[in-house]
Each structure stands twice: as structure tokens, then as C-alpha cells.
């Protein structure tokens, strides 16, 4: 009743948000509802209403399959490497950049470092493929230092390394913005006082700069841990090939390949995707709760 009165009072506003609400219902919530085909033997011709229920069959089939361990391991390893090697780099970069006194030089470094973020993934992956090829730039550097040329991206042993290093190259600058914003909020007088007390540069970084980044670091870390189970498929499917599936194939690329590219196992792959989404969601809530217990830094 009160709701109806509110709608009558704010007719124009409700009218304004209507397209947005419809968008979220159609393009976000309908697919969520559609994921119940994970519990069916879904046939396109029969639709959701007409397809037979299959219970947990597809989940069990996934857990029993040889792929389960492989894609789970690859997903977690790529996430882990990205976290261990990729997460600290923007922090370090922001701290170092913050120490640059020449403003022009600083802004040039910033502008350049953000650039890769805006280049399309297709172009980036095209560059990675070409640079890591047998005659590519990276092999030439390896050969220059006395190593052997090889098709780097064709070797399963290299895939994760190439993925993570190129990821750092792409996002280091852009990810540092949020830390730089936090750093620009520090009162310069604190540094002055530290200098008077005899603190050197490293001491200042350790005792002033780093602590002021802790809240931002915590929040971003929560998000990263919440996303551990998710490695985006776009870059993977642009870079991998059947030779490297054993180290490159992650859950999302597996879902894409079995569900849309090579096969049309809709119910099975939806089950796999749902498994990933649920674990992801639990991880995020877990990380948030954990951080809330420890301190005030949390997402919600």
C-alpha cells in the first residue's frame, strides 16, 4: 500500500528506472533462472518447461571426469600466480612512482603505463603470439643470451608464465591508479616530520606510505580472493591450443569449449559454470567476513 503511494508520488522516477530494471531482469536474472538447466537434460526444442529433470547427474559427471581436476588446478594455479606475482606489482609501482619528484616525468610514466589497459585483448594476444613465436622478439633475446629458440606458447610448461607476465604488463599501470589516489591523500607534513626525526626514504615508505595503503590493499585483496575461482576465458581462448590444454584450460574456457565452441552440452556445461559461480560467491563472502572480523576494511 505504502509502495503504491510511493510509486504514485514518484511516477516519473519509477518510469526512468524502468528500462534499467527491465535490463537487469532480462539480461542478468533470466540467465540466473536459466541456470536451472544444470539440473535437467535440457533440449532446446523442449525448452526449460519441457525438458526432463536430471538431478545432480551433470555435477557428478563433472566431478568424476578427468577434466575436473585439470581445470580446477589450472584455474586455481593461474589465479594464485596472478595473486602472488600480479597483486604486489601495482602497489610497488605506485609507491615508486609516488617517490618521483619531477612532475613531468611522473605524468609521462603514468600515461604510458595505463596505455596497455585500453588496447583490445585481440591485439594484445596477437602481439603475445607473435612475440613468443620461434622467430619472435622474445626468442631473439633468449638466443642472444645463449638460449635455444622454441615455440614458447606451444609448450604447456610456459603457458601460465606467459599468461601471468603479460597480465602484469597489461594491468600494472591501470591497477596502480587506486593506490596513487590513496597516496595523494597523505598529508605532506607527516613526511616532513619524519624527515626531521631522521627517517630516510625507506623508513618513510615503510612507516608512512605503506600503512596508508592498507585499507585499499585489504579491499582489493578481498575482491581478488573472491575471484580466485574465476579466470576469464577471453584471454585463455585467444592464447591456448590443443597442445597446451593440459596447463591452460580453466573452468570458464572449458565451459565455453564444451558448451558452445566444439559441443553443445548445455546442461553439463551450465552445471560446471554454476559450480564455479557458487564457489566464487562463497569465497567472496568468506573473505569479506574474515576481513570484517580482523578490521573495519570490508566491501559491505
Amino acid at each position, binding site marked *: 500500500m505504502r509502495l503504491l503511494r510511493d510509486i504514485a508520488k514518484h511516477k516519473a522516477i519509477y518510469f526512468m528506472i524502468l528500462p534499467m530494471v527491465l535490463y537487469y531482469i532480462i539480461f542478468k536474472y533470466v540467465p540466473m533462472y536459466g541456470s536451472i538447466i544444470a539440473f535437467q537434460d535440457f533440449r532446446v526444442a523442449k525448452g526449460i518447461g519441457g525438458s526432463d529433470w536430471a538431478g545432480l547427474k551433470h555435477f557428478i559427471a563433472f566431478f568424476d571426469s578427468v577434466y575436473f581436476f585439470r581445470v580446477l588446478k589450472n584455474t586455481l594455479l593461474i589465479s594464485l600466480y596472478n595473486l602472488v606475482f600480479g597483486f604486489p606489482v601495482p602497489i610497488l609501482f605506485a609507491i*615508486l612512482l609516488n617517490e618521483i619528484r619531477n612532475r613531468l616525468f611522473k605524468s609521462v610514466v603514468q600515461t604510458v603505463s595505463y596505455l596497455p589497459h585500453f588496447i583490445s585483448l585481440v591485439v594484445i594476444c596477437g602481439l603475445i603470439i607473435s612475440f613468443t613465436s620461434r622467430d619472435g622478439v622474445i*626468442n631473439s633475446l633468449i638466443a642472444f643470451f645463449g638460449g635455444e629458440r622454441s615455440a614458447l606458447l606451444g609448450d604447456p610448461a610456459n603457458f601460465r608464465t606467459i599468461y601471468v607476465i603479460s597480465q602484469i604488463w597489461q594491468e600494472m599501470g591501470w591497477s596502480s591508479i587506486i593506490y596513487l589516489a590513496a597516496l595523494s591523500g597523505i598529508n605532506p607534513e607527516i613526511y616532513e616530520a619524519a624527515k626531521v626525526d631522521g627517517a630516510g626514504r625507506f623508513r618513510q615508505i615503510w612507516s608512512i606510505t605503506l600503512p596508508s595503503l592498507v585499507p585499499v590493499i585489504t579491499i582489493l585483496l578481498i575482491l581478488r580472493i573472491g575471484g580466485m575461482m574465476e579466470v576469464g576465458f577471453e584471454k585463455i581462448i585467444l592464447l591456448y591450443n590443443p597442445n597446451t590444454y593440459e596447463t591452460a584450460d580453466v573452468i570458464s574456457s572449458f565451459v565455453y569449449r564444451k558448451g558452445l565452441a566444439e559441443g553443445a552440452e548445455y546442461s553439463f556445461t551450465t552445471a560446471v559454470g554454476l559450480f564455479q559461480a557458487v564457489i566464487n560467491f562463497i569465497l567472496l563472502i568468506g573473505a569479506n567476513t574474515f576481513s570484517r572480523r580482523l578490521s573495519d576494511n570490508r566491501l559491505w
Partner: protein
Amino acid sequence: MAPFSDKAFNLVNGVVMLAVIVVTLYPFYYVLLASLSDSNALLAHPGLLLAPLNFNFDAYIRVLDNPNIWSGYLNTLIILIFGTGLNLLLTTLGAYGLSRKIMLRKPIMLGIVFTMYFTGGIIPNYLLINNWLHLGDSLLALILPTAINTWNLIIMRTSFEAVPESLIESGRIDGAGEFGILFRIVVPLSMPVIAVMILYYGVGHWNSWFNAMLFIRERELFPLQLILREILVQNSTDSMQLGSSAADQQAIGESIKYATIMVATLPILAVYPFLQKYFVKGVMIGAIKE
């Protein structure tokens, strides 16, 4: 105070930052040089380039001769213009509504934020767009499903909330309706954030390829990035080389690849240095939320 260690630190730091610049820019510089090089010379010279080999524009002539590049450009422009237009309209209306004190604000906001952390997944999404909405082989499949980006919506709402309530009140006293207030008071005051939105959405459309790969089968409708993918990732420059010998084909392919990258990336590279500060502004507004 230790002046010497200070100097040493500054020197090392400066060198590290220079290295960042070189490592970031060199790949692009290499692409530029390779695109201006002779293909045979390029194949015979694996390794770093510091200047073009046998400087020429042949690869560019080949690329611009390719009808696929032109149709790709055209399709991308159509998606960019109509897509960004729809993005702006829906995001502005929605963000304004969510910045007003209506009863359903909280539950709607919760429902929207939830979609950032939990999604139905790619298969149901595909079935929805392809089988139930029948948007396959239509550019609408690349425009409608990305009509609102939740991050951008939140950035815009945050910025609208910063518009002083007194201005909105005075507009209401002058007899303006909600649409009048939005488009004559709030939007003009929020032009910086709207510029940020145009950039974010625009770059997103320019660079996106995956939905096109899923939903577009007709070559005439391929956006630029799909054409690029064929050339760069699937390594097929066939469509450009009809009539040349096999050996020539591989040779031409090399510099064509790089020229294609240049042609497809030049618009971004050209506007980027001037718009960079707006991109950064978006991150800042988004960060305030936290």
C-alpha cells in the same frame, strides 16, 4: 637524513621507471616499424627492430584494399554509436533514479549489486540471446546485452548524488519535472562524469569481440575485432592475398599483420593521450564509493 642513499634511491627509481616506459612502449614501436617494413626482410630478420627494414607502405595498401577491414570498421562504428547512445541513456536515467529517495531504491540497488558477484553464466546467457530473443546475426546482440555496465552505473550514481539538493529543490520550485531536473540541472553539472562514461563505454565497444564471435556468423556483420582475430590469432590473411604465390603469401602476411594492428588501434592511440585524465577520473569517482 642520509643524502647519499637518497640520491642512490632516486637514481635507481628513475632507471626503473624508464625501464617501465621502454617495456610498455617497445611492443607498440615494434609494431609500427614492422608494419612499415618489407615482409621478406622482416622474415629474414628475427629480433628487435630499431628502424623499419626497407621502409615502404605496401602492407598498409594491402590492408586498406581489404573490404573486410572496411566493413569491420563500419560495423564497429555502428555498434559504437548506437551502443554508446543506449548505454548513456539507460545509465543516466537509472543512475538518476537511484540517486533519488524512492522506496524501492535499496532493494533495487541490492538486486543490481548482486549481479556483480553472481551471474547465470555464459551458457544460459547464450541461450537467452540466441535462442529465446533470436538476436543471432544481428548487431543488436552486441548492443542490448551490454546496455548497462554496473560499475559505470554506480560511478554515475555516486556523481549524481554529489549534486547539491538545493539546486534540485530550486528547479522543482521553478516547476521543472523530474526529466527537466535531470536534463537541465543534473546532467549539465555532471558533464565530466558523462565524458568518462562515453569513453569507458566507447572503448568497451571498440575492443569487444567475444559476443560477436558467439552471435554473429555473417561475415558482412563482423566487427573489426573479429576480423583482427582471424588475421592475428588464427593467422589467416588468406582473404587479402588472392592471386599471390604461396611463398609470397607468407611473406606478405607478416607485415600485413602489423599494419592491421596499426589500422585498428590508431584511433585509440590517437585520442588516448588527450583523454587519459578522464579515464583516470572515472577510477577516482568509482573509488570514492569504497
